[in-house]
């Protein structure tokens, strides 16, 4: 069992479990947390799960946990690793079932006080326009060609169909489309599960939330993003729905057969993986990219339906209710990238159940988003 005596404080709010803690660790594990968060993480299996990720072949420098660390399966929630190519691995279970689960933030220039009399009507329209539940179906019915286009184009397909603006794409991680998608590696069953689910929220901890901007810590930066105190904000938290789940399930199951062929020993079978450059690794990456693009498109269509809901209720009654996108960012994703560490440039794949930071314009402004406290109305 792992306890506080195994953890070393290496800086304020940075804690380390040294590589010597377990023989199978390839690097130390690090947590970014204050003492209360650390105690909470040590109260269940979160930190053991973090240590497990430090055993992945090719892992670079540290296995890392963000301050939101809590117990998941395979990776802890909030866990991030980067693995160095070519020997580094990609892990479908590490990315998780809800590929590109993420959060989108919209804001308006109207105050909560102005829409308060209409909140019940807004809630009714949101329920009607944004279906929820595990197997719920949306209003778009895609044929094979259209689904294929969504898997490859993501939010760009939504813009072509009039469900997104250029501004929306500019304010989305990777502009709402990650490269590498190839639907040939997405099973028929995965496509069947996703075909009618665009524009649906799903279940579990997924939500659409109408918020009030309670406090702004840097008014100048917030103003650049269109965020002002007491105004209305909307958050969307969801991902790739049944399509992403089926892709993860397909590849976690498939890699159980091949992981031993690569001589990889793992402390938890949910971490099953393959070298990124292997046939299996590349096939999963192509399929995962499809699910990521599907999730970007899904949150985009939900944003469109939320805007429609606001318009149905507020048009002619309240001014400036239009919702502008602040940003959309994923937290279950693997990405191939070039990076520099200790003056050495190399290729790696990052695997995260946490937000890694925006990839688009205005990065500096986005850093302050986490400092905005938004309370539900």
């Amino acid at each position, binding site marked *: 069992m792992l306890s506080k005596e195994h953890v070393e404080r290496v800086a304020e709010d940075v804690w380390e479990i040294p590589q010597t803690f377990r023989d199978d660790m390839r690097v130390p594990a690090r947590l970014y947390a204050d003492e209360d968060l650390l105690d909470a993480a040590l109260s*269940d299996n*979160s930190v053991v799960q973090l240590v497990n990720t430090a055993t992945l072949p090719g892992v670079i420098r540290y296995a890392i946990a963000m301050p939101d660390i*809590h*117990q*998941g*399966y*395979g990776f802890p*929630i909030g866990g991030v690793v980067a693995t160095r190519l070519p020997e580094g691995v990609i892990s479908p*279970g590490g990315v*998780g*079932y*809800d590929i590109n689960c993420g959060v989108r933030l919209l804001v308006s220039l109207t105050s909560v006080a102005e829409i308060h009399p209409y909140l019940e009507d807004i809630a009714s329209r949101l329920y009607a326009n944004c279906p929820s*539940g*595990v*197997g*719920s179906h949306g209003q778009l019915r895609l044929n094979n060609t259209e689904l294929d286009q969504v898997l490859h184009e993501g939010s760009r397909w939504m813009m072509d169909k009039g469900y997104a603006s250029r501004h929306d794409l500019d304010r989305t991680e990777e502009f709402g489309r990650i490269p590498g998608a190839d639907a040939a590696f997405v099973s028929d*069953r995965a496509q*069947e*599960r996703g075909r009618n689910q665009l524009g649906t929220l*799903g*279940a*579990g*901890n997924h939500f659409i939330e109408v918020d009030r901007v309670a406090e702004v810590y840097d008014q100048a930066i917030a103003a650049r993003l269109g965020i002002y105190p007491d105004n209305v904000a909307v958050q969307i938290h969801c991902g790739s729905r*049944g399509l992403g*789940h089926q892709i*993860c*399930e397909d590849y*976690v*199951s498939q890699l*159980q*057969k091949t992981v031993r062929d690569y001589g990889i020993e793992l402390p*938890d*079978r*949910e971490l*099953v993986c393959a070298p990124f450059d292997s046939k299996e690794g590349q096939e999963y990456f192509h399929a995962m990219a499809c699910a990521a693009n599907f999730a970007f498109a899904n949150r985009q269509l939900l944003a469109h339906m939320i805007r429609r809901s606001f318009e149905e209720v507020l048009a002619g009654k309240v001014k400036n209710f239009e919702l502008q996108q602040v940003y959309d960012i994923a937290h279950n994703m693997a990405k191939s990238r070039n990076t520099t560490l200790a003056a050495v440039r190399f290729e790696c794949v990052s695997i995260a159940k946490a937000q890694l930071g925006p990839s688009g314009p205005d990065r500096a402004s986005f850093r302050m988003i986490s400092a905005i406290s938004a309370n539900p109305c």
Partner: protein
Amino acid sequence: MMSFQEIEHTADRAFRVTGRDLTALLENAARAMQALDKDEAGTTAERLETREIEVEGVDGESLLVNWLNEILYLEQVHHLVCEEFHIDDLKNHCLRARVETRECDRTYTHIKAVTFHNLKIRETSDGLEAEIVVDV
């Protein structure tokens, strides 16, 4: 004695299941998963339909995960409530089973997927035991 028991999990759900042999363990695991969702069952038609399914794995654990995920597939995609489970044949990590189903007007399950997290089928004095974490 109950053949399954829910166990604590911070963010998802988990249960411990037992069986005198692998067949019983698999059937009981399916019943346990249904029990987790019992309160969620919605309006169902009266008609009962028996579905025959075949599942394979590379070992006992992967067969267990694939079997439960196959049941979730029926429920999520075909909007069925799976009510009883009979494994007719099990050898070499392959099974053939009958599942009693009812049609449902919606997907009632809140379980999204069955995971391999720390999954190990263990021998006990009474047979077999496993702990299963599901994604919700």
